[in-house]
């Protein structure tokens, strides 16, 4: 028999208090784990949804000649006449260290074209990526699925007097209008949007793009790191972070975190108080026992160990089962929150933290009662008979 045997037998044969303490702590750990798991899943979903706010990194040709304003963002050096970006070089973005954080790469070619009665700005895009990235675009009709299809901005459609199904000659090539964008209030309203290869041919820029919008998800690294990584991968271009979008995104995620940690803090505090009160009660109830232990020659450190091993053991169980319960709650609750797009992922750090935090909180909360127990004078404890 060792000191720990006494603790095991106490827990085994006096289950009531142990179960009360275990349940209380377990609920605490489960709440924290469920909350953090939900927050992580929801934050991830929020990050994904935030993509609808648009790109957060712009890649433009290195140029110091002309400035072009697009999408409300003034770009330093997009030249319509100077050199463009080679489309092939964009594959290098997939090789950067944080390539998993790159959500979308939307290359586009821009150029002036002749249309009936004047000039207009033609933009060639990859429709799937572009329309995916710009979820605020309200499209009547369909995307330009075929090479002879064209989508018009609302202002362009009005000025040219065209509707869906009409045809338009652009620099000598006939297009059918497949869709018209509803008014966005931006320069998108002025655009003619065609598929990228067609636009490249019409503008005489085969294999070239004028600008690339990149949507990066970077919860745990500064977006400036990704800008630097892309700059290194594409040394001949200008890479800029669109700070406003980045900051909005980070702010939304950090708000989730602050809320979760705030609640977690309160729950941890309540858990600690529960352990403290229960262990204090346990020590008072066991004053007589502690007196016996001290009288038969147990040192203060032995009594301290008895109380702390008990608290540590119960806390470890509470941590383990609390984590499992918390995950169960999170997995069960996720489909009920939002549209089911949020998914739970195993987070080993959270699992380890739950276990370690439960034990640390349990031990810290039990320290004062344990010290009190160990300081009991044997004669005082035995007088409590």
């Amino acid at each position, binding site marked *: *028999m*060792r*000191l720990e*045997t*006494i603790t095991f*037998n*106490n827990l*085994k*044969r*006096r289950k009531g208090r142990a179960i009360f303490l275990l349940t209380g702590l377990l609920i605490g750990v489960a709440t924290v784990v469920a909350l953090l798991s939900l927050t992580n899943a929801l934050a991830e979903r929020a990050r994904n949804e935030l993509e609808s706010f648009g790109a957060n990194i712009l890649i433009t040709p290195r140029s110091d000649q002309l400035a072009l304003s697009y999408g409300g963002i003034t770009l330093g050096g997009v030249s319509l006449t100077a050199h463009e970006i080679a489309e092939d070089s964009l594959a290098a973005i997939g090789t950067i260290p944080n390539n998993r954080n790159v959500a979308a790469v939307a290359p586009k070619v821009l150029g002036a074209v002749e249309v009936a009665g004047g000039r207009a700005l033609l933009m060639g895009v990859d429709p799937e990526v572009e329309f995916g990235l710009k979820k605020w675009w309200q499209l009547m009709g369909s995307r330009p699925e075929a090479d002879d299809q064209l989508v018009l901005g609302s202002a362009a459609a009005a000025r040219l007097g065209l509707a869906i199904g009409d045809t338009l000659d652009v620099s000598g090539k006939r297009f059918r209008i497949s869709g018209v964008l509803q008014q966005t209030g931006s320069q998108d309203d002025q655009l003619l949007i065609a598929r990228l290869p067609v636009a490249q041919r019409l503008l005489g820029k085969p294999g070239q793009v004028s600008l690339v919008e990149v949507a990066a998800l970077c919860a745990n690294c500064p977006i400036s790191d990704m800008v630097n990584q892309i700059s290194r991968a594409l040394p001949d271009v200008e890479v800029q972070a669109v700070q406003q979008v980045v900051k909005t995104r980070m702010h939304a995620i950090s708000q989730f975190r602050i809320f979760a940690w705030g609640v977690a803090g309160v729950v941890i505090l309540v858990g600690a108080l529960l352990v403290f009160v229960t262990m204090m009660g346990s020590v008072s109830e066991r004053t*007589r*026992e502690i007196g*016996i*232990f*001290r*009288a*038969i*020659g*147990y*040192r*203060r*450190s*032995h009594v301290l160990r008895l109380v702390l091993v008990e608290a540590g053991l119960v806390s470890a169980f509470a941590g383990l089962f609390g984590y499992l319960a918390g995950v169960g709650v999170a997995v069960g609750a996720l489909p009920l929150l939002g549209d089911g797009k949020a998914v739970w992922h195993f987070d080993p750090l959270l699992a380890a933290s739950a276990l370690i935090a439960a034990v640390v909180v349990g031990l810290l909360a039990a320290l004062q009662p344990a010290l009190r127990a160990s300081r009991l*004078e*044997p*004669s*005082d404890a*035995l007088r409590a*008979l």
Partner: protein
Amino acid sequence: MALIRISELTKHFVNGADCVSALHGLDLAIEEGTFLGVMGPSGSGKSTLLGLLGGLTRPSAGKVEIDGIDLYRLSNEKRADFRREYLGFVFQSHNLVPYLTALENVMLPLAVGRMKDVEKKRFAAEVLERVGLKDRLLHLPQQLSGGEQERVAIARALVNKPPLILADEPTGSLDTTTSRQVMELFSELHREGQTIVMVTHNRDNLDWFDRTIFLRDGQIVEEINQRPETPARECA
């Protein structure tokens, strides 16, 4: 040579504004192998004396030496070690740990030692067998009778083979027959050379002791030295 030497032992208790004196300058020497009875009315200082002999509380003045060791010059932790090595306690109302079996209760003093688990079990089982509880090893205290619980308490006091056993009213809560059995057990230990100091208010126990001191108001008022004899059994 005296195993225990008590000199000028004084103990006061502070109770609110009052200072209650439990022992006044007590001097006492107890030879090795003595079965000493400490008797006296309630509040005479019997239990205080036992507590001071056991290193459970500090004296207000005076000295307690056991086997040449000045008990209250030791640190708290050293005094705990001393209790483990030198003393066996038998408390009033048994004081067994309710969630431990008889065997585990007896092993308690060994739990913090370096002995192997098998050895601890063997020692504890042997002592329990010695006190006649061979068949009760795995019983919890609540499954044992009062006399059996008392014998477990005695076994626990014996398991680490201490030079001195201190017993506080061990028969206080037992019926006459069981009391007698328990006293016979103590007497047997005494015959084997065990030094025992027993506090009791039961005059029937007087005949078991080879020396008895009577306390009143914290002082020895009478002392009887007698040859230990096993009292004649009463007719059933």
